[in-house]
Structure formats: C-alpha cells, structure tokens
C-alpha cells in the first residue's frame, strides 16, 4: 500500500519556482530521506505535503485519498503529522501541558464538552508515560520556553508522536542537538513502529543513512536522484551538489 503520493507538484513564490514538477511515492512503513543543498525546496515539499502551503499545480494523495485541497488540520486528523526545523511549542505552557494538548488533539473525543474526568486521567497517564519513556520527566513541570533548545526539539518530536500519526514528516530532527542527544533522538525515531511511515529531512549524513530505506535528492526545486542508500551515496551528482568531493 502506498502511504503518500505527490504527483507532479509545483510551487511558485512570485517568479521563483521553489518546487518544480516533483513526483514521489512513499510506501506505507517506509523510511524516506529527503536531502539536497540549502534552498533546494525540501521544506517547501513538506509544506505542500502537510498543507501548510497550497500547491501551484499537482496533486497529493494520502492513503489513496486526494488531499490536495484539504487544510492542514484535516490532514492532521487523517494521520499526517510533522515537526519543524524551528520548534513550535507553546512557550508559556509547561512541557506536560504541551504534551497533553497534543494527546488531546490526537484523541477523537477531544472536543466533547461532557467528557468524564477519567478521560482526563487517561490523558495525564499517557503524557506521563511518554515523558517517562523518553527519560524527560525532569522537565515535565518547566515552561516549554525555559527548557534547553535540545530538549525543546525532543519535546517537539514527542508531540508529533503523541498525535499517533500514520505518516510523520520530520524536518531536521537532529539539528542543534548535542552529540548525545542526537543518539537519543535517532534511537527514538528508529524505535517507532513500522505502522508509521516517516519522511525525514536531514543534513547529518551519518544520521541520514541510519534512518533511510530510500533517499530522494532535491536540487533547485527539482527531484534529481532517487534510490536506495548506497546508490545515492555513491551517485556522482550527489557528491558534486551536496556532499562535496573529497
């Protein structure tokens, strides 16, 4: 089964073609890596897939359903979650409150006015379990705006996981993390069940190759190479435009 299909999608900003006729098919459960030089259109691709931006042309399918015209929240309800290059936490809420909100958003009864307290207990329990699992209980009560940047990135990832997504878009999940945190976050991502399809933008090649089944390379808004890890790593054009030649 295919999880996500982008069919000939483009996006223009004024005169600039940020993304130009890109097509890709991601199978359910696949780990797909998106790489490319800075400004190649990687984040734009995520914006189009998640609905944060409208496509100028082309279509996006999520599990066979055309979502091209659906707003972000509708796509999120269908199981499409994303993290950002820059964290998007509620800075004045505590870490726990941030996680609770994400759990509530992933909960179908989220907006029921007459819900029982027990449901709240379940949310608290779920949030606690998530924070415990990832060894972040020490910062549970701190305001999200006050915790260290690396911790914010980890919480951002946990929020996405808390929404119980079917497809997860990760935009540079290890950027700005310490070496030890990179190890933690990579193991967090690797431990996610294969029921979740994951697309990752990543510049750390050691991390990237560890997280990928297949790699898509963008350059100047176009898809230039696609293939498995070895093929892409050794591709002469990838060396030239992205990795640099030794």
């Amino acid at each position, binding site marked *: 089964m295919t999880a996500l299909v982008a069919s000939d999608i483009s996006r223009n900003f004024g005169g600039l073609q940020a993304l130009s006729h890109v097509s890709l098919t991601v199978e359910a459960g696949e780990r797909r890596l998106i790489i490319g030089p800075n400004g190649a259109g990687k984040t734009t691709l995520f914006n189009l897939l998640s609905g944060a931006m409208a496509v100028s042309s082309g279509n996006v399918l999520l599990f066979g359903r055309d979502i091209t015209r659906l707003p972000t929240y509708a796509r999120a309800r269908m199981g499409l979650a994303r993290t950002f290059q820059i964290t998007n936490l509620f800075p004045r809420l505590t870490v726990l409150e941030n996680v609770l909100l994400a759990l509530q958003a992933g909960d179908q009864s989220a907006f029921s006015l007459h819900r029982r307290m027990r449901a709240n207990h379940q949310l608290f329990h779920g949030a606690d379990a998530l924070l415990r699992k990832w060894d972040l209980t020490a910062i549970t009560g701190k305001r999200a705006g006050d915790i260290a940047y690396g911790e914010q990135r980890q919480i951002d990832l946990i929020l996405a996981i808390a929404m119980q997504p079917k497809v997860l878009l990760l935009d540079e999940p290890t950027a700005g993390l310490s070496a030890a945190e990179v190890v933690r976050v990579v193991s967090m991502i690797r431990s996610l069940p294969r029921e979740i399809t994951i697309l990752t933008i990543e510049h750390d090649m050691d991390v990237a190759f560890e997280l990928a089944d297949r790699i898509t390379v963008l350059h100047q808004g176009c898809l230039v190479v696609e293939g498995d890890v070895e093929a892409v790593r050794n591709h002469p054009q990838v060396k030239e435009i992205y990795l*640099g030649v030794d």
Partner: protein
Amino acid sequence: MLSVQDVHTYYGDSYILQGVTLELKPGQVVGLLGRNGVGKTTLARSILGLTPAKRGTILFKGADITHMPAHRIARMGVGFVPQGRRVFRSLTVQEHLEVTARGEGRWTFDRVVELFPNLRSRLRSLAGKLSGGEQQMLAAGRALVGNPALLVMDEPTEGLAPLMVRELGQAIESLKRAGTSILLIEQQLAFALRYADVVFIMSKGRIVHHCTPAELAADAEAKARYLGV
C-alpha cells in the same frame, strides 16, 4: 582579546553561569562544547551584553564590557551569529548585508556573496522567505560584513548542507588568518575539533575541562563523561 573572569549569570531566579573563566587570544579559535542546557548560549549572551553577568568581569581588548549595553559592545567589534537563524524577516538579503557592513576589513559585501552563492541569487528576497539553511548563511554573512575583531558563533553549522559546512569552515580559517578571534559554540564535534585551536567543555554552568582538539579526540573518557559520546 577576550577575558572572561569568574562570570555568574542568572535568568530570573535560575542560576545559569556559576563562575566561568576563559581567555581568547587574537586570531585564536576557541571551541565551546557541552551538552544542551549547560550554559553555552548564556555565556555568549553575557559576552554580548544581551544577558549581562551579575558578578565577575568581561574584558574585550582590555576594556570592561561586563555591563555595557549590547549595541556598544557590537560597535567595539564583537560580532554574533545567533543560534536558530535570527534574521530580520522583513529586510531583504541585500539590506541585511548593507545595514551591518562596518569597517575597512576584508569581509565586503562581494566577498560574502562569493562565499555563499545562495545569497547572491536571492539578494532581493525578504530574509523571512529564505530556506532555513539560507537564513543561517545570512546570519553568518551579516556578522562577517561587520568585520568583527571577535566573532561569537552559536551553532553556525546548524541546518547547513555538508557542502556549505565546508565553505563555512574555510571562512573560519580565513578569519583566523586575518587575526579575528572566534568563540565557536558547536554541537558538531568533528567541526569543532577541526577548526578550534583549543576546546573548553562546559557542564552545569562551569568550565569543567579544557584541552587541545587532538587531546579531546583521543580522550574517550572525557568525551563520554562530558559529551555523552
């Protein structure tokens, strides 16, 4: 060039820097390492006057800048590449590089856009419209055209593609040859080890270790204890 002496800094009630001391000589690149949350960025902010130290002394070229306002410290020749691409979203690339240009130094507008070709092709774009990595290049370029005597870089490689990381490394070497001192806060250990002359490691608001990059590279115990790798 820079002398940080027993500096203590607070965020509200939080006691962040608990007596930090370090020295930077002219043309020296000091790598500042440590896990997240240990106070590296706070140290940068104290040097820059953004979060002034409560106790201790910071000297730049012999002048006491501990309690000087940030803009005056900047004018004395301290440049800053902040973490997380803090560019002015409503200014164009060109405006960024013109507004902050200062001094007769080697880093001119032309030289910066030669270093970062992405910026040259986006001169009239608003900074907020650039990709993440391009904003990072702009933050670096903006600091370079100020021709600082001391450059504080807070995770300058974050979000840069491998090829651009190399270019940035070459820029650091060129700055160093020209006598600029650099405080390089960096999570990419390999990058810090390659370009720093000496490395300091912070933990819980203090400097807990300093050595040469070669010594750290060979010291598995220090790496495990302080950096978790």
